[in-house]
């Protein structure tokens, strides 16, 4: 019985052994090919993504949640002067100066905490040259939504930055050039008058001698010289108004009152040109912190321009009012203001040609004839309003008049 049991056991063991072998063979025969297939597919897939990754002009890297590199493409590795497989396990501290590495790590941390994608523009010095890099860092999430690392894609934007800088330099140069040409033109005119009149007088005196001097004609010539010198003086004073630093004498100002005073000062000029002034003043206009004298200069410029645009008479409407700023309001100081006051001057004159409208605040730009305007009034006005944290805008329909609207923040001037 014992023997037979032992025999049975052996048989069972043998059977089981056989079954295991068979199963192994079955697995080998059946599963192995599909396993290999899966492995091949995986390898193929990886190669595909590698190809994709390596052919991107961008630098791509992957870091885990401790900001340790897990992978990168050739381009990124080349920038760091390593092979792509060498980056695994390293951190930014292995490649960048400590301060920069700290900044990168702080960015990674922010992105992983917020879960938001971030665009970062950074500059660093490489071989003594400043380089600019644009990087998009994306948090990597697992299936359950947990953030496990950061994917970075970056590209060099040094060339673009240099082009932008050249463009700005060129624009600055062009502006300075235009300004210089404007100054030269304006000064050359009175200079010509001075030179010619002085030479003419000298010539006449030499020719005629003292006895034959025609005093009246000579005085007339000298007066021309004097006027030309005064013109030069006005141009220089106007230019200095640009160069002087902000020196506003701010005090609580009633804008309506400033307009009234300016109108009184200009009463004669307004009357002789047959201009009718129509006032729509807001009685409850907020008192603003402003330099009344300088605002008066602005109003005076606008009123005189309007009068000169209406040589045969016309209407000048002056409107004041106020509004509350909203998110669409342009300018930081304006948005911060509790209220914005609005002053509008509109005339029924000849208007401003469309092509002139965009240049109307440029220094030395004038649509008036020479000898009538230096072309600095509006650009000085623009500067004064800007110093008050406000804006001035012009609109016009040729032949139908022009309108100038000034907006100044009533409060928040302390932040200027």
């Amino acid at each position, binding site marked *: 019985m014992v023997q037979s049991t032992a025999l049975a056991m052996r048989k069972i063991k043998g059977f089981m052994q056989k079954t295991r072998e068979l199963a192994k063979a079955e697995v080998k025969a059946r599963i192995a090919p599909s396993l290999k297939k899966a492995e091949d597919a995986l390898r193929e897939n990886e190669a595909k993504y590698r190809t994709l990754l390596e052919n991107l002009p961008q630098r791509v890297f992957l870091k885990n949640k401790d900001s340790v590199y897990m992978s990168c493409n050739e381009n990124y590795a080349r920038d760091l002067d390593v092979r792509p497989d060498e980056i695994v396990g390293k951190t930014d501290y292995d490649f960048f100066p400590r301060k920069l590495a700290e900044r990168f790590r702080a960015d990674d941390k922010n992105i992983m905490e917020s879960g938001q994608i971030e665009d970062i523009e950074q500059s660093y010095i490489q071989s003594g040259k400043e380089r600019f890099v644009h990087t998009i860092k994306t948090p990597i999430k697992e299936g359950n939504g947990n953030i496990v690392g950061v994917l970075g894609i970056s590209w060099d934007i040094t060339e673009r930055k240099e082009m932008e800088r050249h463009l700005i330099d060129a624009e600055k140069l062009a502006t300075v050039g235009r300004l210089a040409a404007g100054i030269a033109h304006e*000064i050359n005119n009175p200079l010509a008058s001075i030179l010619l009149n002085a030479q003419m007088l000298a010539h006449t005196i030499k020719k005629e001698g003292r006895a034959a001097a025609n005093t009246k004609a000579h005085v007339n010539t000298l007066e021309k010289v004097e006027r030309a010198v005064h013109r030069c003086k006005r141009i220089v004073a106007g230019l200095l108004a640009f160069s002087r630093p902000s020196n506003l004498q701010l005090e609580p100002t009633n804008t309506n009152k400033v307009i009234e005073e300016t109108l009184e000062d200009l009463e004669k000029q307004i009357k002789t040109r047959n201009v009718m002034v129509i006032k729509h003043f807001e009685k409850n206009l907020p008192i603003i912190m402003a330099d009344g004298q300088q605002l008066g200069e602005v109003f005076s410029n606008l009123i005189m321009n309007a009068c000169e645009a209406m040589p045969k008479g016309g209407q000048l409407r002056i409107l004041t009012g106020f509004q509350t700023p909203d998110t669409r309001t342009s300018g930081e100081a304006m948005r911060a203001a509790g209220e914005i006051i609005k002053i509008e001057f509109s005339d029924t004159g000849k208007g401003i040609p469309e092509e002139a409208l965009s240049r109307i605040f440029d220094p030395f730009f004038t649509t008036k*004839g*020479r000898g009538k305007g230096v072309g600095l009034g509006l650009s000085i006005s623009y500067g004064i309003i800007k110093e008050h944290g406000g804006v001035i805008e012009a609109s016009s329909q040729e032949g139908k008049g022009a309108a100038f609207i000034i907006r100044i923040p009533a409060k928040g001037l302390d932040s200027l």
Partner: protein
Amino acid sequence: MNALSKKFKILIVEDEEDMCETLSKILRDEGYNVVSANDAREAIAKVKEGGLGLIFMDIVLPDMNGVEAYKVIKKINPETTMVMITGYLSEHLLVKEAIREGAYSCLYKPFGMEEFLKVVKKIMPGEGK
């Protein structure tokens, strides 16, 4: 040019009155016959009247620029001898355009009396004193 006799006038087109008067006086003192205009419209009207031997035309005028005015004047009288006057530099586009359009020359402010008269004498010899 010698055919031009004293009956020919010189037109000064300059919007700045003092400058206009000064240039006119210098020419009159030298015995020339002078007329003047303060804008392009007035200048074109003077050209239509005829009898001009030479025009001095400022480039910046209140109604149109001097080069545009020159183009209009050329249509009325293609033989017009035009000398531009300007406070701009020779590189200015309008100065270049004027020369391309056939202007005799350009006087750059501040030019002196001698330079001014030299041009007149060259274009209208025997016309002054």
